[in-house]
């Protein structure tokens, strides 16, 4: 079920990229820049974990960016109302989880294709976020809350530690638990999973709930980082998350993929953006390069898969 060989290819790609940047600019391979990249990657990387679970079930979640915005503004408003920050964070996470569960219900009970239901949720959550705030950002929080983004533990920024925690946990969930096995089974062949007694509806709903929850977690970090929650935050973040997942070797057809691969995928995107900034490359070229890398990664991935067969 787990394709270590394919992750290896992506890892080589990441290392090659780092090598090239190391040759090209003296500013790349410094401890502070690497931590900088890890921190910048954390938000996309966390969303991409949820996306990986969803895509392995052969689904898709287009609503992650909007859920992030909604979780963010609800949490920010709660904070502004004077609620202690741990409770506000919990509220933000629950909003994300709830939106995800609604996605799950629409897909399993409503029998809507994931593309449609999450497209709807994308618009609904964004709209609610805008209504909730009358379109205005909610900003200015306590130092304790902002510590989530600004704090360090042995010089490692807290968002990076949160990201590592999420990846360890997600890797464990996907490889060592029933939830993980069923996630692969549903994506591989939903009919067969159903016939062999897997409660498909339940596990699918859990997976979408998890994806929403992680969007909520990303919202916590983003809000602390910018010291502001914007109802227009996270527009098109779904595409970055899908890109990281796909670069990491998860198949959009479902049934295969890995958490480690997604981490490498997210890092490739982060390193690329960072490197192109360091080199002072025009923003237009940057978009082209990132797009090309996504296409290239999937092409190589497919070629490798064919070879194996």
């Amino acid at each position, binding site marked *: 079920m787990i394709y270590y060989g394919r992750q290896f290819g992506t890892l*080589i*790609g990441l290392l090659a990229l780092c090598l090239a940047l190391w040759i090209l600019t003296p500013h790349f391979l410094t401890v502070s820049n690497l931590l900088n990249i890890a921190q910048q990657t954390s938000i996309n990387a966390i969303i991409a974990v949820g996306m990986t679970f969803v895509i392995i079930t052969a689904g898709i979640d287009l609503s992650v960016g909007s859920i992030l915005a909604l979780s963010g503004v609800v949490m920010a408003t709660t904070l502004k109302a004077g609620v202690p920050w741990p409770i506000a964070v919990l509220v933000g996470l629950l909003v994300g989880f709830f939106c995800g569960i609604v996605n799950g219900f629409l897909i399993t009970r409503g029998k809507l294709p994931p593309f449609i239901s999450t497209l709807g949720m994308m618009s609904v959550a964004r709209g609610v976020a805008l209504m909730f705030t009358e379109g205005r950002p909610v900003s*200015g929080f306590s130092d304790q809350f902002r510590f989530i983004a600004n704090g360090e533990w042995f010089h490692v920024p807290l968002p990076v530690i949160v990201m590592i925690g999420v990846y360890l946990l997600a890797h464990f969930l996907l490889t060592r638990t029933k939830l993980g096995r069923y996630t692969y089974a549903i994506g591989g062949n939903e009919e067969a999973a159903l016939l062999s007694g897997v409660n498909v509806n339940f596990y699918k709903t859990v997976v979408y709930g998890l994806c929403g929850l992680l969007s909520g977690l990303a919202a916590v970090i983003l809000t602390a980082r910018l010291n502001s929650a914007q109802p227009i935050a996270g527009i098109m973040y779904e595409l970055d998350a899908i890109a990281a997942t796909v670069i990491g070797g998860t198949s959009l057809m479902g049934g295969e993929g890995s958490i480690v691969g997604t981490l490498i995928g997210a890092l490739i995107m982060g390193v690329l953006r960072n490197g192109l900034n360091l080199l002072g490359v025009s923003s237009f070229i940057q978009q082209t390069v990132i797009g090309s890398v996504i296409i290239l990664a999937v092409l190589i991935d497919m070629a490798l898969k064919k070879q194996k067969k």
Partner: protein
Amino acid sequence: MKKILILFISTALLFACQRGEKTATGRPVVALVMKTLNNPFFIDMQAGAEEAAEQLQFKLIAQAPERELDVEKQMQIIENLIQRKVDAICVAPSGSREIVPAIVKANEAGIPVLVVDTRVDSVSLQQAGGFVTTFIGSDNIDGGRLAGRFISEKLNGKGKIAILEGIPGHETGDARLTGFHQAIADYPQIEIVASQTANWERDQGYNVFQNILQSHPEVQAVFACNDMMALGAIEAISASGKTGRVMVVGFDAITDARDAIASGTMAASIAQNPREMGRLAMVYAHKAIQKDTIPPTIPVKIELVRP
């Protein structure tokens, strides 16, 4: 084989992007971080900055997030430029408050920050203990007033008007709107029948104004907080066969808008001077690097463009 291919192509891509880097050694490096490059306003700003950088003999790194509203990406760009150890950063903030943490990081790295076009929220900046070298931009409130007075006078102080707003909570749009409201307050018989956001965009300007025309067919004039929305409104007016019967006033006087003014479909626009803004950003970045004293605000000329 495939892995070697990846390695080769990534390296080639990066080397291809590398041109120009080497010629810059020894020269100061100044960064200009804009909101987007999907808007002619910022393309003009970049052009002005490039000319000035050439003259002043330093290397310019011009960057912008892929999407205008993406403050987090803008923050990432600034963090990366700090790693790059640029000598000064000029930034047109995508969010007046959200950019503050990035400015503080630049402060900590000892890199001067010059704010261009959109002001930073001064309260947030103070609370965070950050500071900026100067603000280079136009007075948008004044621009809004110019537009308000122009429309009111054209309508002889009486009539029904609509407004296409920018993104709410966005300092630039809010200031233009404030100025506009101030100006029309002097004309009690001017009535605002609709005021809605079209998020700065041309296609949304079209749709929103089409809807306004449906619900308020009597509307005589529209003020759009930027030209992109104004141009969208012009298309909507033309589609409903009302060309010439609704006066359109935009903001920014971009090339398309100037053409529309020349051809008579747009009544007026307020000209900011992004090219001059880009030039001044470089001039004052240069002064900041040399540690000259710089006034806290550098005004850029603003004017009404009409046929």
